[in-house]
């Protein structure tokens, strides 16, 4: 039965009222009295030596307050990287300095060279144009293979070459994997590219730095998914400001998708400049600037080999990937192609042997980091594509091939470190096949063919590791941070609650779903619970929102804190009713002495906590406020099966998505409507990657897709109505809510089925095309049909 309140109810998102009526308070809505404006002068070449910077003319431009270059940052740290990877040879990754403003060299189009602070934005822009910079062009390295070639130009002169690390996982399995592949009955090999993407949140990045002369404290307002992490990284590693003198506020944030996790140079600059100038400064990114300064996503070049025995059991998987880091290491960049990618390479299958090699490469491009799914879409794509290719080569049904290899016993220890706690891959596949009427597909295909169109059906599975994650484990894997989450529950005297969380909401609807959890536990109305997030001054230290972790980790912290509240409130209730604590039951916001009609309301207990006239002061303190930090002991493992049905116009190569279905196992679900919305958004981004989106550079390192004129953002028009189902539920066994996380699944699970569907359509028209690299633009599909391969 659908519930109408609490856990399991599709409560309308309370935050939508302000978002949809223009009442949100975003960073750009924050203007601090007396603020000046920042404009960055950015490199228009990909690689060059800075011969000179002449700011004399610019300083004379009306309204200029000050112009900064790298020489103003002597003694200031570079932008730090939050994860260290160790190479196969035992050496730690190479970690070149990432200065706030370019030092000596520019390394990508968009690299900031100078920053102008002026009274108005237009004046700052005028002055930036008046700065004369002489750059000696250097040859750019853009292609990763070329970057690794002997004698290639080096992005960082102090490194011997452009390799960041060469990672092997599981290194001890390498020889066994090689042997299994050599001895296999069949090996399917696939070379593919996971295309570079730009996240493009609706709200571009903004930073406002403020400095309080009276107490020497700094405040940064910023578009961030994790203000505490920014405070720690920027305070401790870049600017040397202790946390108690630094406040970071991330108010309403208009979409993040990963790209707002990272600590950016512009944030450090605004904080630094506000202190230097003793006045607030504000930077608002333009959309054009966002294309060349927001961290990009994906950009892997991979060869995957799948070995099978004569009965079509998977015996080994071997992959080699080149992962683009861009010009500098963004905050979590090294972890994405390694631990967030290699650990997923078993997928939903019993493959006993897996070996993953990743070479991370510096190039003269914008830094690449986590984007919705982060490593897991790359793992899923190659695995689910190579399985489809194997099915075609072997002439077997792709669903049956998958089923033959499904993991069916849980917990399941994979050969790639992670242990899946629960799952039921047959259940999601069964659910999917029913949703899509697979049996009716031949008739639908015939109907398309009658209209001169080719119809294809593509199916894939996915599993992901999210709810990131156990601090102890990630510490062993090279994380330089813990990954717990926190919550403080403050009960007010009249019974209302404020929950202060270290998670951050940038569109996910946490204010609604978190309130459902806490209200449900106590049995009060959801509107009695206020969720506060995004300000280091009034929330406990938390690690923020990414990796589909907010409910699984942040929600669990809330549960723990609320449990402490209830335990204390029960003591108070027992005292008020002169009963034994063990006899007290909390239900529907009322404490009852079990087996009697004696009760006190929630509000009576909370009032007693703050007006302790009749109160067990000898046993407990007044007040009702508790904090909990929750550190999970495992990742969570959402899984599912996705299907895409397409029609291809054989004359033009144009692909139309006719149907898309997703059967997900997210464990328990707090708000089904919000979950479905998350899946819809993820699928839109996944289909976007598969068919439309592509961040492209030319050989000189100029960004070709630098605006919406060339970067194809998906639009509603590009999609059918999605069918989503989350009724298959194997609850997570190790967090108190039994939830797994749903934020990234859609983007992780959808690209393979789209490509599989297009290739299925082409095959039905007699075009035996093994692979087309994403995005499958009409031109590429047409060329493939002409036998011109991937172009």
């Amino acid at each position, binding site marked *: 039965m659908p519930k109408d309140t609490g856990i399991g109810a599709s409560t309308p998102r309370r935050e939508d009222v302000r978002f949809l009526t223009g009442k949100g308070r975003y960073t750009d809505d924050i203007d601090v009295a007396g603020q000046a404006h920042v404009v960055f002068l950015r490199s228009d070449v990909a690689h060059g030596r800075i011969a000179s910077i002449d700011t004399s003319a610019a300083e004379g431009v009306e309204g200029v307050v000050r112009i900064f270059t790298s020489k103003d940052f002597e003694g200031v740290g570079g932008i730090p990287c939050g994860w260290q990877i160790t190479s196969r040879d035992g050496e730690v990754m190479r970690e070149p300095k990432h200065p706030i403003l370019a030092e000596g060299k520019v390394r990508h189009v968009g690299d900031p060279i100078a920053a102008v602070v002026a009274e108005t934005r237009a004046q700052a*822009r005028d002055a930036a*144009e008046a700065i004369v910079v002489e750059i000696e062009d250097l040859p750019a390295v853009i292609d990763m293979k070329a970057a690794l070639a002997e004698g290639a130009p080096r992005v960082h002169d102090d490194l011997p070459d452009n390799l960041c690390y060469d990672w092997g996982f599981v290194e001890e399995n390498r020889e066994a994997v090689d042997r299994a592949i050599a001895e296999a009955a069949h090996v399917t090999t696939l070379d593919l590219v996971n295309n570079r993407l730009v996240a493009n949140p609706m709200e571009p990045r903004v930073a406002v730095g403020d400095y309080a002369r009276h107490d020497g404290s700094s405040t940064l307002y910023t578009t961030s998914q994790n203000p505490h992490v920014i405070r720690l990284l920027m305070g401790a590693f870049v600017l040397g400001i202790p946390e108690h003198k630094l406040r970071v506020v991330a108010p309403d944030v208009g979409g993040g998708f990963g790209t707002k996790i990272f600590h950016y140079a512009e944030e450090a600059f605004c904080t630094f400049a506000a202190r230097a100038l003793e006045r607030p400064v504000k930077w608002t990114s333009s959309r*054009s600037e966002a294309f060349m300064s927001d961290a990009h996503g994906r950009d892997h070049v991979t060869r995957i080999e799948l070995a099978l025995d004569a009965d079509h059991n998977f015996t080994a998987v071997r992959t080699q990937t080149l992962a683009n880091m861009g010009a500098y290491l963004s905050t979590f960049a090294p972890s994405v192609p390694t631990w967030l990618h290699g650990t997923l390479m078993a997928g939903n299958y019993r493959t006993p042997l897996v070996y993953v090699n990743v070479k991370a490469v510096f190039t003269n491009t914008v830094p690449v980091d986590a984007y919705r799914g982060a490593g897991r879409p790359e793992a899923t794509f190659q695995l689910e594509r190579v399985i489809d290719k194997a099915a075609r080569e072997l002439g077997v049904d792709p669903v049956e091939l998958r089923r033959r290899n499904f993991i069916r016993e849980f917990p399941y220890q994979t050969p790639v470190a992670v242990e899946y706690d629960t799952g039921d891959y047959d259940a999601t596949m069964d659910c999917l096949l029913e949703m899509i009427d697979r049996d009716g597909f031949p008739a639908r295909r015939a109907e398309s063919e009658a209209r001169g169109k080719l119809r294809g059906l593509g199916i894939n599975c996915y599993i992901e590791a999210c709810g990131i994650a156990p601090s102890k484990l990630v510490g062993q894997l090279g994380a330089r941070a813990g990954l717990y989450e926190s919550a403080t529950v403050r009960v007010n005297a009249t019974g209302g609650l404020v929950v202060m969380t270290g998670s951050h909401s940038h569109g996910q609807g946490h204010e609604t779903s978190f309130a459902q959890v806490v209200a449900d536990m106590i049995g009060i109305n959801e509107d009695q619970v206020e969720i506060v997030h995004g300000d280091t001054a009034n929330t406990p230290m938390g690690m923020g929102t990414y990796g589909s972790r907010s409910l699984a980790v942040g929600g669990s912290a809330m549960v723990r804190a609320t449990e402490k509240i209830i335990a204390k409130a029960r003591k108070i209730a027992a005292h008020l009713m002169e009963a034994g604590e063990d006899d007290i039951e909390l239900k529907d916001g009322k404490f009852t002495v079990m087996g009697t009609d004696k009760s006190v309301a929630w509000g009576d207990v909370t009032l007693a906590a703050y007006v302790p006239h009749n109160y067990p002061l000898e046993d407990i303190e007044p007040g009702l406020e508790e904090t909990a930090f929750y550190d999970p002991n495992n990742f969570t493992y959402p899984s599912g099966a996705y299907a895409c049905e397409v029609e291809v116009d054989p*004359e*033009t*190569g*144009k692909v139309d998505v006719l149907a898309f279905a997703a059967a997900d196992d997210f464990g328990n679900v707090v708000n089904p409507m919000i979950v479905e919305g998350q899946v819809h958004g993820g699928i839109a981004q996944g289909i976007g990657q598969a068919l*439309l989106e*592509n961040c*492209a550079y030319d050989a000189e390192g100029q960004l*070709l*897709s630098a605006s*919406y*004129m*060339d*970067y*194809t*953002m998906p639009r509603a028009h*590009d999609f059918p109505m999605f069918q989503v189902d989350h009724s298959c539920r194997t609850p997570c066994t190790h967090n108190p809510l039994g939830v797994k996380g749903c934020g990234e699944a859609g983007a992780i699970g959808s690209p393979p089925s789209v490509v599989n569907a297009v290739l299925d359509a082409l095959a039905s028209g007699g075009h035996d095309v093994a692979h087309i690299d994403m995005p499958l*633009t*009409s*031109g590429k599909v*047409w*060329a493939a049909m002409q036998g011109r391969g991937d*172009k």
Partner: protein
Amino acid sequence: MYDFELLKPATIDEAAAMLAEGDAQALGGGQTLIPTMKARLAQMDRLVALSGIDAIRGVCTDDDGRICIGGGTSHATVAREYAKSYPALASLAGRIGDPAVRSRGTIGGSLANNDPSACYPAAALASNATIVTNTRDIGADDFFQGMFTTALEEGEIITEVRFPVPEKAAYEKFIQPASRFPLVAVFVAKFADGVRVAVTGASSDGVFRWSEAEQALSDDWSADVVAGLAAPGAEGMISDLHGDGAYRAHLVKVMTARAVKGAV
């Protein structure tokens, strides 16, 4: 955007005088120019807005039965006015950009800019339209002179565009998915004395007539005859992220055949 002075003439003569003086630029609907200015890619001392000149707005029919559209007429107006009398033209106008673009953008602005991927140049060239300016009449064949290049002199203003109405016509557009401009689009127009086929989006020289198709279709008006033609050569075709020259050349043929099939 750089600073500029905005002038609002009420007549063509006033506008011409303003444009003749110093660093001035005419502003039609601003659907290209304003974004260009916002990106600081265009700079002028004075911007002469043509939107206040009533004489170049609106539509009529002349004694020869030609459709006459004022240079300052919006795409939305053309889409509305010619749905019956020249449906191919109305359909073209009704599919440019989005409703906001169609409400502001003008036919004169589009033709004067001659973007190689704009829609209107294809209609004007295929219809053998006459572009009327404040100083002269220019035939479409002489007007379009390559990417962003036209026969217009400095300060010359398009006051009207006169379209002969063909017996049958259609505009078939294959969009570039990011910009939604044509990747390739073809306007075919069948007149009593022959067929004209104009292609936009494909060539780095801008809009052009596909003469082989015109010849073949003038002899035999059928989609099948297009299928029998070789696609135009890929040389000179635009090659970019969204499609290479060979693909665009192929699309010219596909869109031409579809236009013939759909012509009304």
